[in-house]
């Protein structure tokens, strides 16, 4: 199972940190956490994957949904610090092309 830490930085960027496994068991809640942030006006969101040990296709779908919601609201969604195991899932599905992994949470919106 996974749980989600949510915080907002001084720059107004929302940071969602899923801990543990992110699968169809938790993907729906994960998506809600992102879309609730966006709906509340935090349209720039970083998903910090440093503590995500496993990620499946439903979590990828939730990320795409969150990305679309953020862009529709004039913001964006970035991912940061995936472990090698999680990064391989992005590469196998070509998702690294639309969600390019960033090296840090703080610098995720620099470029």
């Amino acid at each position: 199972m996974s749980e989600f830490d949510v915080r907002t930085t001084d720059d107004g960027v929302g940071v969602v940190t899923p801990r543990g496994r992110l699968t169809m068991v938790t993907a729906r809640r994960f998506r809600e956490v992102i879309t609730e942030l966006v709906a509340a006006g935090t349209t720039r969101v970083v998903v910090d994957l440093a503590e995500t040990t496993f990620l499946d296709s439903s979590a990828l779908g939730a990320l795409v949904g969150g990305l679309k919601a953020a862009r529709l609201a004039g913001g964006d969604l970035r991912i940061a610090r995936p472990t090698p195991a999680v990064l391989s899932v992005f590469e196998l599905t070509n998702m690294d092309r639309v969600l390019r992994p960033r090296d840090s949470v703080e610098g995720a919106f620099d470029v």
Partner: protein
Amino acid sequence: MSDRVTIGAPATPASIELVQTALATLWEQQPGVTARDRMRFETALVEVVGNVVEHAYALDQGTTPGSRQLELEISVDDSTIIALLSDDGRPADIDLGAVTMPDPEAESGRGLALAIAALDDLRYVHADGRNQWTLICVRVRP
């Protein structure tokens, strides 16, 4: 050292957790399996179990959720990791040869494409009244 694990469980999302916990135990007993092989096998297995669970809900409308039963056997030897997964539900009507990876903008439809990409071989048949999946990962020598 155990080289085999079997699980029988209802086809519900909670069973994915059960499968991943059983895999973690198996990996502890098989330290020779590389991190890369563990990850691609677990990725594929979670996707296939997820597919079965989804179809169990989609096809069995009107019946009790979770009434479909999964049977899973995972075995490890020197050259391969194999999972045999079956369930007693209606035929899944899947053509694995027609599965392609959706565009990055798609919000669903990646599961089986990801499983195929992660594995060396994935097979599906409906036989003896059961959906039967075979997942094969050829181990990479460290």
